[in-house]
Structures are given as C-alpha cells and as structure tokens.
C-alpha cells in the first residue's frame, strides 16, 4: 500500500487543511481536528464535531497540545549515557548514537534476560491508548517478560475503584449519569468540571441541566476547587474521613428513614443471603449456593430455589444455627455511625449528615420508573462519584466498600440516574459486541482479572501464595495492582523478602521519579537497576537515570488504531477511533525506510533483533482475536502498518483497514437500551455484604505467617468501617492535613511543561501556592502571599506561597496539581506534592496498594510577609 501515512486533510466537517486525530494528553481521549497551516505547521486544534464523545469541544490542554511539536528540548536521536554515576540532578552526559547501535544493545540485553531471568525485567508505561488495545500488550506478553507496572496510576488511581466497579457494576469504574442523575455526591471527585472522566459529555450535559435547576451536586471535599465551586452545596470534610460520612448516611437510610430499594436488594444483590454467627454464608447442603429465608413457609432455601416470600431483613434459626440476612448484618453494623459520631470524626455537622441522607434518599425515587427507547426501566437519579480523593488513603479498600453501599442499597446501579459502569463488559469485536456478565456459583457478579489481565478484580479473590513478583502481588488477593510494594519491599528487603529486584527496565509515558514517591526514595529505587531504557519526547526526571534514551513521538505524529472502544456514559453513543499522524517527526525512526509513526515499531524491531518476533506475532493473533485472512503467519515479517491494517479489518470488516483509518477513522454506533442501562437485563447479583473478604484475609494471614512476613490483614472485613489514617488528629506541631487537588488545565495529563498552560497557571498562581484558612494562617502569623515552609511529620520540606482563603477546611493545607520538578523546562518554584509523601507501612493499604495522600504537616511563616 502506497501511502504517506498521514491522516487525510479533507473529509471532515471543517474542510481542507483539517486532519482528524485523537488527543491523548489525558485519558478522556477526545476526538480532534488539527489544522495544518500553509507552511505545514500544526497551528491549532479544535474538537471534532462528528465525535460523539466530545461533540466538537476541547479543553485547555487539548487546545494547546500542538506546542509540544516544537519543543526546543525534544529528543531527536538515540542517546547513550556517558556518566556512570546516577542521581538526582546528575548530568548523564548524553551522547548521540545510531538507532542501530541502540537497538542492538537493548535487544541483546532483552534476549539475555529473557533466557536467564525473565522475571527480573520491568516494563513500565501508562500509555493507556495502547494498553487497552492489542499491540503493546502483544510485545509485553510475547516477549515472555511479564513484569509490568504503570507506576503512579497503580499507587494513586483506581486502587479502590476498579475491583469495586467490577464487583457491583460489572465495569471498570462507575460514573454518574449526566443526563438523568438529579442528586450527585462528589466524594473528592470533580465530575462535571473538566476534571474527571467522561468529562466533555458530563460537563456539557450538567451545564445544560443547571439552566433548569434540574440537578443538585454536593461536593464532599476538604477543598473548594472548581467542581465544588460550581456545586450546589460544598460540604467541607476532614481529609480521610469520608467513609464515616458514607456509613452514617447508610445508617440513616436503612435504620432511620427506611428508604432503600427493597426489590433491587432482594433480586439483584446478596442482601437476602443468610449469614451465620461466624460471618460466612449458610450454604445449601454444604455446596456453593447460599441460603435465603422464605417467610412463606419459614424455611431456608437456596437463593435460586422456589422462594415465594424472600426475607430481606431479620434473624432466623436454621437447623439449630442462628442466622440473619446479610442486609440485617449491614443494618446492625452501621448503627454505630450515628450523625453525632460522624460529626466527631469528619467535622461535618450532624444535621448536615441527616440532611444529606434524607436528600439522597428522597432523590432516589424508589419505586419510580422511566421509559427509555420504549422500555420501562427503574429510575434512581441519586448517585455518587469518586476516584483518587477517596482512594488514596490508608484504608482505601474499606472506603471503596463504604461508597459502593450507597448506590447499591438504593438500586442506583446501571439504571437511569444511577451510577453507570463503563462498557468494558462489551465483549467481542467493536462492531459485533455483546454484553456479558458472568455469575459465580454464589450467584454474584464475578470478574477475575480486568483490563486485559493487568488489573486484579475484587471478587472472587485470587489464590494467595508466596510472592513471585517484586510488587508482592500474590499477597493482594483483592487488590488491583501493587506497584507501591516495589518501593516498600525494596526499601526493606530483609523484612519483606521480595523476589530478586529487577535488573532492567524499559519505560515510556511514565515519569515515575516525579509521579510516584519522594525523590529520595525514588532515587534509591532507580539506582538499583543495572540498565534503564527510556523512550521519551523530552528529558525528564526519570530519563536522568536512563542508560539509553530513544526518541518518542508527539501524539500528533502517532498512529494507533481505535485507541480502544470508546464510550460516553448512559445514553451517549459508542465510538471507536484513534490517533493518526497529522505530521511526521523531524527525525529518523527505528526502522530504515519506514516512517516513524508509533512506539510499537521500536518494540517490533527489538523483538526482531532479539529473536522473539514470532512470539510477539502469535501473541498479537491471540490478544487481537485475529481470524483468517487477517491472522499473522508467525514465520513471516510484517511492518507495523501491516499489523494495524489487519487488526482494523479484522475488527471492522474488509475495506475498513489502514486506508479507511487514515481517510476517515471514526466509527460510531448508537447503544441499545441494554448497553445504556444494563442492570435490569442480567441476573448476577451485586454485594452489600462482602463475605469473601474475611476468608481472603485468613489466607493472607496464613501465607504471610508461614513466610514470616509482617502483613496487615485487619481490613479484610465483611462490612466496611471508617478507620483513622496516619494523619488523623496528629498532635501539634504536625497537626495540619496537607492534600492536593486537580486543576482543569493540568488534570490527568502530562502538561506541566506546556508553555501556554503554564502561562495560564501562572496568571492564577495555581501551582506555586498552598491554600490556608484565614484562622489557621492567623494562628501561625502567616499573611497572604508570603513564602511559607511546609514540613512533614517525616521531615520532608518545601516552600510555597501562602494563599489565605475561605476555600479550604481550617485543618487543611491544600495545593493544586503536582508541579515542580527539576528537569529542563520544569517550573521548580511550583509545589511538588509527591515529594512530600511518605512510603511506609503506616501510609500503605495492604489490601489495595493505595498510598495515603493525606500528609501530616506543619506550616510556618518565613517572615517574608512581615
């Protein structure tokens, strides 16, 4: 096929000179049109009006993305380190080498480690656009080098989101329904304000509905950021105490107000399952099937048996054993979370706790239905939203279990107005997808590994065994991933006895030095690798430790077929599309005579030189589900674009290959009502009582005791509690809680060196300041605008400008984003939040691998304002 591999300059709504592509700055991956000026330079980017995900809109990040194309610090050729000493701020002494030399050396090392110690290789990236596809995963699996980590995303992102999403929503995460949710509680999330997922759809839809006062958003947040400012109510809360408020609301709803979805709980959850005095289900004839109570004849029967009047609440005696329903256990459990107790823990007034519970309950419209596409569905328009704000805590998993209870008891799961799953559960080819939801023998929604096998689910728990990986993942039977244990275990090897530390790392799109732990910890960690390869567009804090650097592409130079199946939640349409080259890079790529259009070309070339190309091809055949005639012959040789072409045609049909992708490349489809709101259409049950947890905890306890590894297992509870994190009520002087929050123009992306965004941030002094409440400032003699010193309980220090503001809880010091850094182009006077974190047992959740991001600090005036 003869082609210049550039996206077509016509054929879009904007006419000539506009090329359809995809913004990959953040995970929202909006459809864009990039404009090419007469001199061939990309000079502006607009939203693609034909794309149903962002319907022609872009955010500040997307509008400014072209800046990176002419970054003066761009890496344009492979480079080798000449300075053997590695360290923060140490000049690597880069010298240019040829692609041949670089690839031969890397391939040689890969081949060797593959033969001898494949477990001591680490592949690190958060290239989400490839990871959910089939190409880069084919290299990871086909190479036989399975070590893989996204780093920061594994420490701060979905630790208490994904497993819980799959357990109760059959989806990777849950988001409010922008169109029908009438009452949305944001627990540390900024849904609807260009700072979350589904962002363009949510922002536009909520804005429209606000015209008619059709929606109430309540922001539960220590800081009043963009979403809380726009919210109808901001409820400041002491950081790390949200679970107490959530359980207090559940208590009000099930024990005081008596508002919950009885039908849903009986038919779509494990609420009626009988639980014995030991906390485990009573099972039918010793088998798998839990029993329920039939009031009609006062007997226990299998949950799927002939039950005429199933009991939701109550205590019974079954064959001489005292038992109660799971829902009864939940009701009894949450009684301790009285509004007064919740106030003591959270600082949210008891009356506000009652108000929120009542409003949430009333807004849930229990019993009401709505007609969608001619089908009558339950209408439950009260819901919640959460992500890192609720997840990055010591007791992260318990927080996640607490929040999922709220929509679950109200039946507000995947129905209009409720918490909506993203449609990962759509299986098969994009165009011939099917919804599926497997059920366990216990009748429960059952997903093991998620996200192409790289993210662990919650239920059923995985088998616990001695650690095989340096991230100790085998000791996390309900956790999604364990990157934080790489750090904890490598810092304390004699205690945790991890498998041998990796020797070699290949990393791209993951500046782990800046985005994971504090520099002192990360420096020790990175220095332990014998050999690091970084593929990067510009030198950053991690490439400083690399031995070989290869030039990466800007997203407007990349060719990634249908980045992954795309969605807008609820009634939004499905779409599939991906980045395609708008321009070519001003340098040579890894394959002579081939346009450099994707990083996968590097990996294919490494596999070829390393002698495992056929394994990568076979892996691609499997992961991409390639059928004849598109299947690869493992003994043949293909270019990257051949792979793209075959995958596309396999997925979308003959004629819909590379040529179509470059000329058009946007596939859309309407959802069926079942795809929009799947919950009423399948039977597998969600959970309000987590019976599997204590058993998983017992397994972890047994294995770690055998191995003599100290491991925390107290949080493996069948019902969640709020428990204090390490910063909770720390005595003076480190008695302030430091947290950070996202800003719209830097959220979820890699934008800190974009000069346009930096200019906007500077104009608002966004990233240089810490927010302090006026009373707190006064007590410390701090005046607005002066430089203050922040010192953590562990002794790490930074300075920042004080912003004295009413927008923050009096016990809290807040900073926006995570700026700073020391690589070229960084804004070193910004606050580098991650550099203040503590990596120790006190701050790590041993269930989910989350790191507590509530930091105990003292803040002192430098006297500069006096």
């Amino acid at each position, binding site marked *: 096929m003869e082609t210049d591999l550039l996206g077509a300059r016509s054929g879009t*709504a*904007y*006419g000539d000179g506009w090329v359809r592509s995809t913004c990959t700055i953040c995970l929202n991956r909006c459809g864009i049109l990039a404009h090419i000026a007469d001199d061939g*330079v990309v*000079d*502006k*980017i*607009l*939203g693609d*009006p034909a794309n149903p995900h*962002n319907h*022609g*809109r*872009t*955010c*500040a990040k997307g*509008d*400014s993305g*072209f*800046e990176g*194309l*002419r970054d*003066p610090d761009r890496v344009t050729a492979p480079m080798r380190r000449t300075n053997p000493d590695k360290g923060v701020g140490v000049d690597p002494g880069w010298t240019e080498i040829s692609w041949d030399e670089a690839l031969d050396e890397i391939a040689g090392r890969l081949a060797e480690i593959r033969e001898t110690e494949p477990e001591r290789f680490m592949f690190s990236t958060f290239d989400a656009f490839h990871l959910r596809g089939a190409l880069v995963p084919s290299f990871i699996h086909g190479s036989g080098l399975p070590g893989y980590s996204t780093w920061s995303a594994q420490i701060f992102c979905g630790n208490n989101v994904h497993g819980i999403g799959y357990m109760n929503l059959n989806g990777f995460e849950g988001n409010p329904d922008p169109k029908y949710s009438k009452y949305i509680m944001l627990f540390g999330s900024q849904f*609807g*304000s*260009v700072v979350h997922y589904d*962002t*363009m759809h949510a*922002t*536009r839809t909520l*804005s*429209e509905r*606000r*015209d008619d006062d059709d929606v109430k958003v309540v922001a539960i947040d220590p800081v*009043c950021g*963009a*979403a*809380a*400012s*726009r*919210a109808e109510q*901001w*409820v*400041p809360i002491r950081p790390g105490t949200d679970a107490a408020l959530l359980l207090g609301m559940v208590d009000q709803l099930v024990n005081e107000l008596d508002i919950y979805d009885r039908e849903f709980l009986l038919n779509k959850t494990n609420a009626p399952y009988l639980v014995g005095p030991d906390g485990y289900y009573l099972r039918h004839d010793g088998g798998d099937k839990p029993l329920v109570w039939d009031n009609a004849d006062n007997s226990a029967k299998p949950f799927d048996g002939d039950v005429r009047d199933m009991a939701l609440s109550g205590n019974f005696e079954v064959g001489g054993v005292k038992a109660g329903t799971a829902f009864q256990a939940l009701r009894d459990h949450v009684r301790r979370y009285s509004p007064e107790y919740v106030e003591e823990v959270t600082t949210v007034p008891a009356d506000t706790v009652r108000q929120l519970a009542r409003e949430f309950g009333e807004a849930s419209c229990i019993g009401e239905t709505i007609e969608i596409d001619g089908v009558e569905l339950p209408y439950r328009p009260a819901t919640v939203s959460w992500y890192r704000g609720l997840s990055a805590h010591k007791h992260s998993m318990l927080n996640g279990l607490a929040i999922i209870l709220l929509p679950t008891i109200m039946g507000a799961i995947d129905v209009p107005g409720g918490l909506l799953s993203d449609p990962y559960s759509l299986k098969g080819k994009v165009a011939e997808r099917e919804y599926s939801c497997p059920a366990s023998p216990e009748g429960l929604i059952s997903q093991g590994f998620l996200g192409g096998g790289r993210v662990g689910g919650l239920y059923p728990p995985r088998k616990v065994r001695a650690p095989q990986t340096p991230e100790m993942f085998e000791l996390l039977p309900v956790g999604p991933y364990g990157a934080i244990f790489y750090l904890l275990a490598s810092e304390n090897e004699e205690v945790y006895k991890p498998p041998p530390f990796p020797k070699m790392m290949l990393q791209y799109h993951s500046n782990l030095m800046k985005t994971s732990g504090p520099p002192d910890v990360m420096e020790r960690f990175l220095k332990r690798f014998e050999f690091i390869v970084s593929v990067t567009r510009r030198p950053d804090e991690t490439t400083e430790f690399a031995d070989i650097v290869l030039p990466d592409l800007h997203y407007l130079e990349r060719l990634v077929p249908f980045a992954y199946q795309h969605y807008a939640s609820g009634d939004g349409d499905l779409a599939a599309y991906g980045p395609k080259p708008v321009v070519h890079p001003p340098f040579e790529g890894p394959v002579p005579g081939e346009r450099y259009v994707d990083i996968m070309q590097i990996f294919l070339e490494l596999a070829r030189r390393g002698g495992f190309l056929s394994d990568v091809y076979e892996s691609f055949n499997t992961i991409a589900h390639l059928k004849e005639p598109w299947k690869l012959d493992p003994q043949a040789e293909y270019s990257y674009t051949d792979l793209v072409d075959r995958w596309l045609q396999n997925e979308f049909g003959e004629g819909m290959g590379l040529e179509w992708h470059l000329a058009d490349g946007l596939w859309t489809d309407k959802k069926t009502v079942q795809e929009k709101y799947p919950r009423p259409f399948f039977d597998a049950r969600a959970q309000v009582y987590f019976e599997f947890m204590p058993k998983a905890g017992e397994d972890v306890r047994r294995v770690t005791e055998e191995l003599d590894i100290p491991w925390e297992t107290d949080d493996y509870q069948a019902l969640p509690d709020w428990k204090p994190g390490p910063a909770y009520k720390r005595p003076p002087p480190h008695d302030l809680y430091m947290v950070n929050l996202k800003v*719209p*123009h830097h959220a979820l992306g890699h934008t800190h060196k974009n*000069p*346009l*965004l930096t*200019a*906007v941030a500077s*104009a*608002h002094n966004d990233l240089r300041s810490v927010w302090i*409440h*006026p009373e707190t400032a006064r007590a410390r003699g701090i005046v607005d605008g002066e430089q203050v010193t922040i010192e953590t309980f562990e002794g790490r220090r930074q300075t920042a400008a004080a912003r004295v*503001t*009413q*927008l*923050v809880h*009096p016990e809290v010091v807040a900073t926006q984003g995570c700026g700073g850094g020391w690589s070229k182009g960084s804004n070193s006077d910004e606050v580098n939040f991650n550099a203040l974190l503590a990596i120790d047992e006190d701050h790590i959740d041993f269930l989910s691998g989350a790191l507590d991001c509530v930091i105990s600090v003292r803040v002192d005036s430098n006297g500069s304002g006096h």
Partner: protein
Amino acid sequence: MRWGMVIDTARCVGCHACTIACKAENESPADAFYAPVVEYEVGTYPEAHTEYLPSLCNHCEDAPCITACPSGALKRRDDGIVLADEDVCIGSRACMNACPYGAIHLFTGAEGEMLADGTRTLPTVQDRVARERHQVGTVSKCTYCAHRIDFGLENGLTPGIDPLATPACVVTCPAECRIFGDLEDDTSPISLYLERRGPSEVLRPDAETGAHTSYVG
C-alpha cells in the same frame, strides 16, 4: 448585523479552555490574554466558592477606546466589531486607560530572554507566530474572531452556529457557556438564548458603553 456574545456564568466551570483556544487562534503575544477567565472568591467558609467570569472585549457601541485613541487605530466595523489596527497604532496606550474592561493589550516584546546579540529567545510556538502576526509596541485585542466571521459569511456559514464561522472561545467551551450570534436576528443562537435566559447584564453598567458582550446566570 450586530454581533454579540452572551456569557452564562452559571454554566462556567473555570476550565480556561476559552483562554487557550483564543490564544491559539489569534496568536496573541505571550502575556496578552484576550479572553481570560477572571477568578474571584466569594463568601465565608463554609459558604464560600470561586466565581468564574469569562471575559473578553465587550465590543461597545460607544467604545471609549475609539474616542481615546489619538491615532485612529481603533475602529468599529458596521457590524459592531471593534478592531485595533496595528499598522496605525502608535502605542500611546490611551485606549488601555480608557477601556473599563482591561480588554486591550500592549505587545511589550518582553517575552523570553534577551540574548547577548540583542535578539530574544522565543520559548513557545506561540511566541514565534505572535512575532509574525503582531507588532511590538502596538496594541491588540479580541476581535470576536472577525476573520472567522468573515470567512464564514463568504462561505455561506452562519456565525454562532457553524464552528468555522464562530469565535474560537465559543467553539471550544466544554460547558457551552458562551453564546454568539447576530443580535438583530431573532432566530440567532444569542437571541434565542436571551429569550430563554435573559435579560442579560453588562459589566460596569456605570460606564454606559453599550457593550455587546453581556452576562446571564
């Protein structure tokens, strides 16, 4: 035709997309933001929040900048758009003092760093194109993206509806809080919006400038 913009502040989420889209479209000098979002704090904890006020040139009917300009560089078109002609501007800054909205910007030429040979580093793509498009020592401002409106009208497009004929800040806005169109056309997006959400208010009504940019929400 009388072009106007209404901004629904109840919709704005403070994302700054308009500011950046404008900068990319109009290639404004580094420190000149033609369409900034002003942020200010209101209320007392815990009843406090940030208000977002998207702003731009108000394209006034009785524009003080035109009256103040000694060189005749500031002009109003027949369709109400107020433009600064950089070829005529002598950099007196009288317009900047006269404008009640702070909407006029002097290209100081102070971006980047001065090098030993007297030239400047131009750290961004925008800095370089701004130097090509604008003249140091003169003023520039929001044009309501007049070039897009003119392009659209020449090509049968409708400003306020068709993206290529509509100001960049309007096109990008994720919350759709900027509505543009012909104030003299009852069926234009802005007229329909004002009918539903109006009446609108202008900023600094005391200045009595007859602003064509107004606010609801």
